[in-house]
């Protein structure tokens, strides 16, 4: 009976995951689990929904483009190429950092978790500070109210920056949590937030690609 419900394991071997605190207990609990936790699934749902939101925004960008004889319209500057690509490449380096932090948490290396999260936070914050400043300058030169192109351009960019900002808040929270030690709850949160962060990086590539497409053709 117990074998049946526990998929071949003894019931005693099924981990009480969220009760686990401290390195050995968390390592044991996470290793015994066969699939991702509910937190990871919850995050997957959230990013699926957010993915559709961005698909709608990017779809809007192209829909308006294909209904407009000139894109960007006369008077609007063409998007810059080099710096946005460099910036998004820099942002992408934080994805392996977050993944590394989750791996370190799974292996119980707490100092490594903290270090990688902190490093990721520095890069994320630097990226965000630059982008927000650049956004401010751009919007002063070419207002959002110019035309449909500027509307779609800035809204897409702002939505992406907002997601980076949320990621930074997540990371700050994780650093605060892991400064107090490790629990499975925190490890689960790190796994879910790592997934979110990969999504944000992919999203940023997609957004930048969409925006740069205005300079093509």
């Amino acid at each position: 009976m117990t074998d049946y419900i526990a998929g071949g394991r003894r019931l005693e071997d099924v981990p009480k995951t969220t009760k686990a605190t401290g390195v050995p207990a968390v390592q044991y609990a996470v290793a015994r689990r066969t699939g991702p936790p509910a937190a990871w699934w919850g995050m997957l749902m959230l990013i699926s929904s957010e993915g559709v939101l961005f698909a709608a925004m990017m779809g809007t960008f192209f829909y308006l483009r294909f209904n407009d004889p000139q894109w960007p319209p006369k008077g609007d500057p063409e998007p810059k190429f080099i710096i946005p690509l460099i910036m998004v490449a820099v942002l992408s380096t934080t994805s392996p950092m977050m993944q590394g932090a989750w791996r370190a948490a799974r292996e119980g290396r707490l100092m490594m978790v903290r270090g990688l999260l902190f490093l990721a936070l520095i890069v994320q914050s630097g990226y965000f500070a630059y982008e927000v400043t650049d956004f401010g300058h751009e919007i002063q030169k070419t207002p959002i109210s110019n035309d449909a192109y500027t509307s779609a351009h800035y809204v897409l960019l702002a939505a992406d920056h907002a997601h980076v900002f949320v990621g930074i808040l997540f990371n700050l929270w994780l650093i605060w949590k892991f400064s107090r030690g490790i629990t499975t709850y925190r490890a689960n949160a790190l796994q879910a937030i790592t997934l979110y962060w990969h999504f944000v990086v992919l999203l940023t590539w997609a957004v930048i690609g969409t925006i740069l497409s205005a300079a093509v053709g």
Partner: protein
Amino acid sequence: MAIATPPTPTAAERMHLLETMWEGRPGILGWFTTTDHKKIGLLYFWTTLLLFGAGGAEALTMRTQLAVPNAHVVSPSTYDELFSLHGITMIFFFIIPMTTGAFGNYLLPLMIGARDMAFPRMNALSYWIFLWSGIFLYISFALGVAPNAGWFDYVPLANGHYDPGRNIDFYCLAIIFNGISSTLTAAQFIVTIFKSRAPGMSFNRMPLFCFAFLAASAGLLFALPLLTADTIFLFLDRNVGTHFFDVASGGSAFLWQHLFWMFGHPEVYILIVPAFGIATEIIPAFTQRRVTAFPLVAIAELLVVFIGFGVWAHHMYATGMATITAVFFGAATAMVVIPSTIQVFAWCMTMILGTARFKTPLLFIAGFIFMFVMGGLTGIMFVAIPFDQAVTDTYFIIAHFHYIIFGAAVFPIFGGMYYWFPKVTGKLYFELPGQISFWILFVGTNLLFFPMHIVGLLGMPRRQYTYPANLGWESYNLAETIGGYITAAGILLLLGNLFVSYFRGEEAGPDPWHGATLEWTTTSPPPPYNYAVIPKVSSAYANWDEEDRAEDRRKLATGVLVLQEGHEQVAVTPVDGTLDEIVEMPHDSPWPALLGLSLFLVFSMLVIGKYGVAGCFAIGCVLSLFGWHSKEPQE
């Protein structure tokens, strides 16, 4: 006592331990801080019922206005607000929250053998956001600036030039605010279905009700962001000066319609698929037979939502789209017939092959099938594109979608209210008034909506404030209005019956219908922990598996899977339902209610253009989230 059979003393001790562990705070404060899915389901139920009353009152006022030609019961501008609010309320603030919020919340964890949702605090947050979004919407009505461009809110009518007040801003923000709640609910349901099922409940052993809610949740999750994007664009166009829908500056008015209907058509299935789920539980209980073609019905429930994403442009035939595009969408629309018909045949065959007892819940399901077929048949007529173009924006359309949305989506809700009333209250309802309420509603609904087909074919446009005499529309409109009042009487009788039954009904016991699913194995009403033992599941009709239930009783005596050491729940692998881990669940928390309030303040400031203050309240939201997560479940 937690299960039907009298427990052994050891079992009683275990159940007492669970009771103390899972019982929430008493009193009013307990309702504010609860994370119990059953209490949250009841909160949803009462709130949506109140909003249903508001939506119904709006409908009756409109019908009174239209009862006779040249009437002036309300002003034209008030009439605009009434039909807009009626649509918004019934769709976003009644049917979705009643099905997913009330029925889903209360029943889904019970049906899958869980002790709570996967994320109980997020579940509470969904409710508080829903409540505040409803208050937000109706504040606009109290202030005389309710949405007034229809529930579909077409631009350019809804842009700042033609509708300069705050009406549409309230619309945009109420939709976005409410959408957050629905998204959280949808995500919650999917994860709960994936992770919190009783061990052994592989996907093929999951009740059809759960498949329906899975389909509706997936629909919500993927459709709502499209409307959110649309309403964000409109709000920005009106308040920040963007030009998404401004043709003169490179925008497109059709963009609104595309995004709206990409959401809007799946939305129709999001509304009715939970009703399918309710039907698939009531039919087996009152025929004592498993649903015919179970796998096909399960697939059809998922497929109908999936196909629903590919048919949006059939709402836009009159916009002058290319013929080839119209034909494509016509064909896609015709495809919806396949999964719909599979289900209709399965329901009918189950009733024919089983021993149908036409108690009130099954009567409502029979009524639902009739209405669904009626609405479906007129829906198929729209595949004929010239016909669709001829009746676009007439009362024929109103007739079609009310047969679907009221007949097919709301009748099962009424049936479900009767069916699960004994489970929720522990009392039996009175059968005869129940049956009378069905017949009143059935007659009233058909009298209300059927003549709309005729008056629509005669050319009466929808959203018409009044009409002149001598167009041949008078008698139909009068009949519709009488039908409206009969329908209202039927609803009042239904609610009155349930109200009186709560106080004077007979004791129901745990399983008055010999229902098929797990919720009938526990007491009525269920204890805070739902099940003393995490139940064993070998089929989708778990309550009819006597051996498994006997094994549960043995396990309670020995303590296997009682999980009495903490506020614990099992988590399983998503597909085959193998026990994977035991997780500690959160306790009651004030943070979801506080976060909901903070969000309400953010949206209130946004609607009056105080963006800085809104930002301050947004910081409050972030702090609430930090507070929320400061204490971990195991602490």
